[in-house]
């Protein structure tokens, strides 16, 4: 791969009060992250965020809420060197972390779709329990991707498919987007018109894992996502009218090999009325297994990138569902490393998030250094070489594209040879089905005849000796009655002899056709076997080219990526130079700030400074309730409840398991009490069901809800130990200002802000409570509250 030019490698030494848990001889992941981000820096790096800024950010990312005021106050006053690391560790073990991550995963996977066949609370509990147990990501995905609803314990995992009506195009798109970071929607009807590396065959590769799924309702009206053993996938481009077939294939991987089952032998449980079919080979299980076995790098990079975006506010690839060559990661090698490391960490989300939180990259401030003149001096001499490098790389991209073409042609030829043989195999398998019917019928006729022959023989064997003996007796004794019986027995024996002869003939007649049809079945199977050998040979040829094609494609991707990165770097460098130049010639303030903003945007993309991100609807709900003291009051009630159900045992040594259980109980108590409020915020601040949920939007009903709605107004009334009650008890304006700013914005007020608060209080001293409520409202509705920074 082509390595981007290390343009400006400034000595990057920021001393952080952090230490990893890694062995001494091993560089912890967070340090590697910082090194790789630093190597790509363009001279300017924001300082490490202040304690208040860090704490607010960390609480929002790990617990989904701003910190409680008491926690903030203690943290700000705490002089312990490793307090950041301690807080990270503590939060990761808190029940609020489980709740928040479960909610984030829920929104990511379901995008607020309505429940179907699985209750939403069951699905949420499934996710909450999974995060609580720190279930690895691969295991969670295996359960979700393989789900058919039959596993009683994990039936909720099927909600991903159920909520999408198990409609194959819908789930194909979302499996691609959510688990592989590739939105292949536009490749459903043709190769993607805008993204050169998204092929129609990519879309149908995933589709082929899923198109055999059927919704099955049992006699108790319970619904399952069953699977059939048949259903091949072919597709036609609406642009070129070219058609092709595909076997199941994961993105960036190759078609899978499947066992061949002669028609009639492909099911463990054959489909029938009110019978849920169970195929011998489940493609859906293959999807779950192959995606999560650690070897699919796209699956690994997708989740590493999404967890990165969860913490950093922006993916290394952004948007997170558009991984492709023309939208390369801002730091490609870092993303590769993160994907691999996440696998090495056994897909442990908690451990991975911990490393991200420990990194200096995560802890950068929103603010950047004041002057860029120094940095510009370093950059200036390199700008020419950077330009020529971008041009040089453009040529390399063209060459890589050329190189890929020959291999692609070879691959296409080999691949094209497979389809007709597969058609033959399908025809042969249909013939097996037909001959199997004849063979089954022939065998049954023969078996019936044989059974009749046997029963006739048995009857004859019983009667014939009896007739002979009776005749003997009759001849000897000459009794009329006896003679009569002997005659009748003989007649019966004669009739049976005739029947036996007929039955024997029938057996003889039916044997050759039975044999013939059995032979025909064997022949059909043999014919299929022979074709299968040719099919395997053709597939082997394809597989022989595959690694070479993979390499060629990798080279092409690398070249395109390097080119894109060089362009980005050039852009970023030029942005810095533009600012430096404007400062130098003392351009007007507006121009300088404009250019400065362009440059800041570049830093955010390169993770040199923190970015401003909006709170999710859930974060907004929890934060408003935390700030106003709704949660404080609920926590007190929750603790009282826990004291009844699981009291502390002051006489015994502390039992960590008991404490953890108490914490879970208390958190669950609060959650149950406030989840209605969260739903209100989701309705206001969330996108529609089934839509991507990440974009920021502001609608008037949100502002009106805050301005005039009864919910927020009631939270601003003093009650228990809530915020306005606490503030109202304070006498001195600086104390009021401090409590207000710590509670709402997780930081102490500046002198200027204290003065403003004092002036506000002073304007209507007789109306103290209202002035407090008004200022609280104003901070609650401020941009600083609405965003994470």
């Amino acid at each position, binding site marked *: 791969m082509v390595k981007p030019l290390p343009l400006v490698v400034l000595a990057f030494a920021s001393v952080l009060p952090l230490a990893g848990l890694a062995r001494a001889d091993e560089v912890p992941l967070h340090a590697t992250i910082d090194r790789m981000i630093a190597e790509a820096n363009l001279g300017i790096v924001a300082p490490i965020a202040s304690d208040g800024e860090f704490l607010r950010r960390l609480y929002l990312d790990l617990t989904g809420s701003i910190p409680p005021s008491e926690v903030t106050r203690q943290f700000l006053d705490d002089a312990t060197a490793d307090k950041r690391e301690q807080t990270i560790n503590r939060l990761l073990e808190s029940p609020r972390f489980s709740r928040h991550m479960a909610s984030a995963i829920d929104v990511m996977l379901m995008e607020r779709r309505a429940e179907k066949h699985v209750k939403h609370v069951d699905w949420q509990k499934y996710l909450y329990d999974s995060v609580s147990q720190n279930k690895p990501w691969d295991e969670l995905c295996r359960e979700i991707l393989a789900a058919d609803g039959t596993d009683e314990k994990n039936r909720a995992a099927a909600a991903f498919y159920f909520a999408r009506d198990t409609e194959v195009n819908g789930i194909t798109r979302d499996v691609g987007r959510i688990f592989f970071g590739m939105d292949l929607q536009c490749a459903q009807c043709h190769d993607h018109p805008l993204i050169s590396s998204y092929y129609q065959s990519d879309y149908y590769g995933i589709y082929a894992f899923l198109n055999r799924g059927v919704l099955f309702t049992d006699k108790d009206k319970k619904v399952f996502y069953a699977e059939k053993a048949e259903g091949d996938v072919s597709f036609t481009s609406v642009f070129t009218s070219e058609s092709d077939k595909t076997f199941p294939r994961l993105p960036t991987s190759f078609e899978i090999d499947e066992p061949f089952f002669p028609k009639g032998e492909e099911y463990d449980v054959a489909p029938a009325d009110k019978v849920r079919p169970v195929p011998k080979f489940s493609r859906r299980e293959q999807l779950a297994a192959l995606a999560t076995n650690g070897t699919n790098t796209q699956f690994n990079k997708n989740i590493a990138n999404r967890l990165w975006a969860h913490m950093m506010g922006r993916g290394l690839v952004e948007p997170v569902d558009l991984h492709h060559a023309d939208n390369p990661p801002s730091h490609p090698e870092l993303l590769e490393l993160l994907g691999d490391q996440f696998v090495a960490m056994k897909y442990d989300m908690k451990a991975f998030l911990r490393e991200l939180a420990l990194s200096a990259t995560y802890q950068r401030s929103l603010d950047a250094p004041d002057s860029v003149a120094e940095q510009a001096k370093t950059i200036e001499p390199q700008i020419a070489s950077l330009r020529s490098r971008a041009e040089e790389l453009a040529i390399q991209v063209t060459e890589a594209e050329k190189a890929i073409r020959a291999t692609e042609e070879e691959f296409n030829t080999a691949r094209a040879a497979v389809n007709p043989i597969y058609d033959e195999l399908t025809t042969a398998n249909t013939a097996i089905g037909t001959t199997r019917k004849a063979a089954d019928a022939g065998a049954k006729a023969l078996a019936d005849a044989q059974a009749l022959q046997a029963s006739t023989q048995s009857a004859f064997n019983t009667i014939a000796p009896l007739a002979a003996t009776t005749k003997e007796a009759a001849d000897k004794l000459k009794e009329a009655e006896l003679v009569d019986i002997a005659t009748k027995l003989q007649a019966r024996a004669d009739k049976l002899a005739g029947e036996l002869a007929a039955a024997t003939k029938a057996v003889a007649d039916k044997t050759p056709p039975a044999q013939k049809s059995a032979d025909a079945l064997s022949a059909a199977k043999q014919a299929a076997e022979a074709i299968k050998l040719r099919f395997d040979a053709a597939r082997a040829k394809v597989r022989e080219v595959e690694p070479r094609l993979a390499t060629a494609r990798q080279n092409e991707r690398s070249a395109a990526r390097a080119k894109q990165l060089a362009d980005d770097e050039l852009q970023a460098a030029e942005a810095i130079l533009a600012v430096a130049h404007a400062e130098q010639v003392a351009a007007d303030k507006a121009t300088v700030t*404009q250019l400065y903003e362009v440059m800041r945007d570049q830093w955010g993309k390169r993770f040199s400074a923190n970015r401003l991100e909006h709170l999710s609807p859930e974060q907004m709900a929890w934060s408003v309730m935390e700030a106003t003291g709704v949660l404080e009051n609920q926590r007190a009630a929750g603790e009282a409840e826990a004291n009844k159900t699981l009291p502390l045992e002051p006489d015994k040594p502390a039992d960590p398991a008991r404490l953890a259980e108490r914490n879970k109980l208390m958190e669950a108590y609060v959650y149950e009490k406030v989840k209605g409020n969260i739903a209100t915020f989701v309705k206001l601040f969330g996108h529609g069901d089934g839509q991507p949920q990440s974009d920021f939007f502001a609608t008037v*009903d949100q*502002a009106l809800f805050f301005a005039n709605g009864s919910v927020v107004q009631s939270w601003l009334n003093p009650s228990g130990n809530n915020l306005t009650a606490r503030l109202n008890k304070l006498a001195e304006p600086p104390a009021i200002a401090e409590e207000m700013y710590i509670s709402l914005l997780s930081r102490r007020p500046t002198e200027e802000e204290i003065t403003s608060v004092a002036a506000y209080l002073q304007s209507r001293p007789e109306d103290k409570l209202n002035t407090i409520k008004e200022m609280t409202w104003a901070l609650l509705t401020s941009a600083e509250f609405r965003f994470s920074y």
Partner: protein
Amino acid sequence: MKCSYACGTDEHVIARRQFLGGVAAGAGAVVGGLGVLAAPASATQLVKDQKRVLVVNMAGGLSQLESWDPKPGTDTGGPFRAIPTAVPGIHICELLPETAKQMKHLSLVRSINTKENDHGKGGYAMFTGRRQTPAADYPRLGAVAAKALSPATSSLPGHIVITPGGSGGRGSDSAYLGPKYSSISLGDGKPPQNTERPASISEQSELARQAFRRQVNDRFAMRRRTAMTDAYTANYEQALELMKRREIFDITKEPQQDHDRYGSHDFGRHCLLARRLLDSGVTFVQVTHSNYDTHNENFNFHIEQVGEFDSPFATLVADLADRGMLESTLIVVLSEFGRTPNINQNYGRDHWGTAWSICLGGAKIQPGAVIGKTNDNGTAVADREVDHGHLFHTYMQAVGVDSSGTFDVDGREMPIADPAASPISELLA
């Protein structure tokens, strides 16, 4: 360095494209930029030129035979006569005498075949111009109109749905266009939720808290100001603006004689409210008249329902014409489907997407036209068959939107209307 001015970054470029608001304007990481609020003086001019849409949703499925496509004297025709209208040659059902007088402003499409007999799916097709599939959701007509036509500077919601009941709130009907274009419903014609300042907050308190909010925001903007922070802070100003203009939702401000003309029943009041909203510059207003799902006693129900519809609707059409607003306002009277020519044993008519009609007019719709026809007893389309896709294209073209264009949603090109369909060009002036 402190920042006091914002532009030039990706975020801002995207936001600026959004402020433009029009067709093919970009949506990106930020949705809901507002820009500068309109000064009331310039708003007047905007209102006059701005294209608007009024939809009357005849919920449940209006019978085409008892409205726009009567077949008197046939086995399917039912008991009602057809009457002449202001346009020579066009006859409609005798239940619509007032509307008949306004026919010079209106047109009919009598050859709709949506092949859809399900309420939900039929409504979806008519409001999105596409068939419903689980794989993708499409924005409703109101959301598309709001996105394409609403002035960037408007402080009013662009997509309003007046419903007979309900408590109001934001709908989930804008799909990928985002919540900014979702419907705000006015339950029973009541103003949007939370538009009135609670009595517990004095005017003095309101002024003081808003001033403090602005001061706090200004301080933060010195540290960081982006399109998102702008959109968020401006949102509170827009809310104040809307509160100030709350009386546009209040039809008691309309003269008594207009109340008399429109009638005191729900539909009459809602039509008057629709007029008031369109007058005030709201882009899309939908009035619902319910319920036409007449599986039983179709004829008695239609006497009652269409009778209630006729006069307020005709009054509204006449008023829009008088005020010079018809050139800019598209009117559509639609349903999810029509009703069967066959009369069932309960004297009812059932669901029928096969051959039915809508009425439309205003904007660039050719007045006094009839598009297509059904056969003699209305059991099939006989000429110029169209479906929901053609209609949706036609609505867009009628308000000056290139229906073959696309919306740029986060870098993804989304066709405004189904690319497989086309407008009914002969209906467009």
